[in-house]
């Protein structure tokens, strides 16, 4: 294990930036989001939850997929993916354990057959440096999904305390990054990290949502859960905005749209939200006409449909962003407590 003094972190960023782009939590206009690092940017590793999750690194909110040139009756399809070849490799820095787990959830969707090449190209050229949590808060419930916030995976795992950032490589990619910044690192930190982990774990045990009961969310109960009458009451205050889906690290629904330029057409994809009224709208009819149905879709997807499709893995990681950000304080925890199982008081 290595460590680096907090004062030298800027050197570390600069060193990484020499060979790779660096994507890191940065404060802008008061809010912390992942952004490309540059001299003078205000990095905020201490922030527990960035507003948007790091999923936008691999699955950006909007992304050009291809272009079309039309000439009379003819169409030419232009593959824009070549730009990836010229792209620098990236280091994604400061990913929390829950967000790392979320990337694994997205991997199952985008790297499953047929592979999504846009996602894959970004994913392959990125080295992920995770950061353990030391001050979880009341909205955190990652423990429920078997996430260890004190020991996130990733290519490199780091821990932060008042003086140092501790560094441990886990994979080949991680070793390569370590070699690159070796000159800035010094050995040590095992005891400090172990102490911090023990302290944090004790806090996590005491968190109000750490022991939610998910036992009822199984594929066998799909229809029973779908038909619960509680959905009506749970969703009545829902505004139908997309806040929960856009801050969610695992929400992966997208829309594909065309934009006409002066020269041709850009086909791009962008995040979409199952909370929106036009999500399932067709030329004739809509399969989900009420907000209750849309609300139910979102939580059934996270807790029942996704696990049924991908060997039991939930597509919620307990980051608690929706708990903090829902304008009307509706969230997945309230759904779990209502429908999850007997042990949710």
């Amino acid at each position: 294990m290595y460590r680096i003094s907090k004062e030298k972190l800027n050197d570390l960023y600069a060193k990484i930036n020499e060979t790779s782009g660096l994507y890191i939590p940065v404060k802008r206009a008061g809010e912390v989001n992942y952004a490309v690092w540059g001299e003078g940017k205000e990095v905020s590793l201490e922030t527990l939850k960035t507003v948007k999750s790091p999923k936008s690194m691999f699955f950006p909110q909007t992304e050009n997929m291809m272009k079309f040139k039309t000439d009379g009756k003819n169409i030419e399809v232009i593959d824009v993916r070549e730009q990836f070849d010229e792209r620098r490799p990236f280091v994604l820095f400061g990913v929390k354990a829950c967000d790392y787990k979320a990337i694994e959830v997205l991997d199952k969707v985008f790297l499953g057959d047929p592979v999504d090449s846009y996602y894959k190209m970004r994913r392959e050229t990125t080295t992920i440096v995770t950061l353990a949590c030391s001050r979880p808060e009341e909205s955190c419930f990652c423990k429920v999904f078997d996430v260890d916030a004190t020991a996130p995976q990733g290519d490199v795992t780091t821990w932060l305390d008042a003086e140092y950032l501790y560094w441990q490589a886990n994979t080949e990619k991680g070793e390569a990054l370590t070699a690159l910044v070796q000159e800035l690192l010094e050995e040590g930190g095992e005891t400090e990290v172990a102490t911090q982990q023990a302290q944090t774990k004790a806090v996590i045990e005491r968190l109000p949502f750490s022991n939610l009961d998910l036992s009822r969310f199984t594929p066998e109960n799909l229809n029973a859960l779908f038909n619960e009458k509680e959905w009506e009451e749970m969703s009545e205050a829902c505004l139908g905005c997309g806040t929960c889906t856009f801050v969610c690290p695992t929400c992966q629904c997208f829309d594909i749209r065309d934009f006409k330029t002066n020269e041709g057409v850009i086909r791009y994809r962008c995040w979409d939200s199952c909370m929106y009224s036009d999500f399932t709208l067709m030329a004739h009819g809509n399969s989900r006409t009420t907000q209750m149905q849309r609300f139910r879709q979102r939580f059934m997807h996270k807790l029942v449909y996704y696990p049924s499709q991908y060997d039991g893995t939930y597509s919620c990681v307990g980051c608690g962003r929706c708990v903090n950000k829902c304008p009307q304080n509706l969230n997945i925890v309230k759904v779990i407590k209502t429908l999850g199982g007997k042990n949710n008081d």
Partner: protein
Amino acid sequence: MIEETLIPKVGVITDVRKDTPDVKTFRVVGTDGKKLFQHMPGQCAMVSVPGVGECMFSITSSPTNEEYMEFSIKKCGCVTEVIHAMEVGQQITVRGPYGKNFPVEEDFKGKDLLFIAGGIGLAPLRSVINYVRHYRDHYGKVVIVYGARSKDDLVDIEEIQTEWMNEPNIEVYLTIDRPQEGWDGHVGFVPAYVKELGLDPNMTAVLCGPPIMIKFTLAGLLELGFEKSRVYTTLELRMKCGVGKCGRCNVGDKFVCKDGPVFRMTELDELPDEY
């Protein structure tokens, strides 16, 4: 560069046929004049007009047709409206094939088959029917019941009358909703007609048409003694990607684009009622 299913191929429209006042059938080949890709009956493809949008359509032509693909498209939204205005020579983009096909090589083999279609619902069935006709000796008796609002709304009526109706061992029953001048065939809704015909419940049935027709026809079939496990239908929901990733065409834990559009009635029974 690795393959990307979301990037379409360019196709050229080589023939446009006006079937009914609001349905046209488009024949499409690749820019090299060859068929764009192979498919199985019941599978779909994403057809797009750049700058307007992309939509999922079932491939109407039979896989046994080695020269081209056909799409029967009903005018009902912004993309289909633009497509309807297209002429021969116009290029469009196509990607696919997507979805599960009818089990023509498995469950259908050796069985007597009953096809029931309403309106544009014939589009996906035409592909299977022609496939079955091509491999005629692999299957038993074929009965086709097809209905539409009026005689002008019967899709592919020419092919039905000149080819299907003249083949031995294929029974075709046509019906229209209301009496019409120049029509001496059966008049009445499909569900009622199916019950009237007193069909053999040991046949394997395939239903396709508007949801309301499917609902009542299915009830009729069950009354006649058909088993749900031998009744198939297709679903249609909003789709964007076609490969189970964009997240909108699901019914419960199944994606219509990937796990459908062909569903056995017993499968549908296990899914929540949201389609």
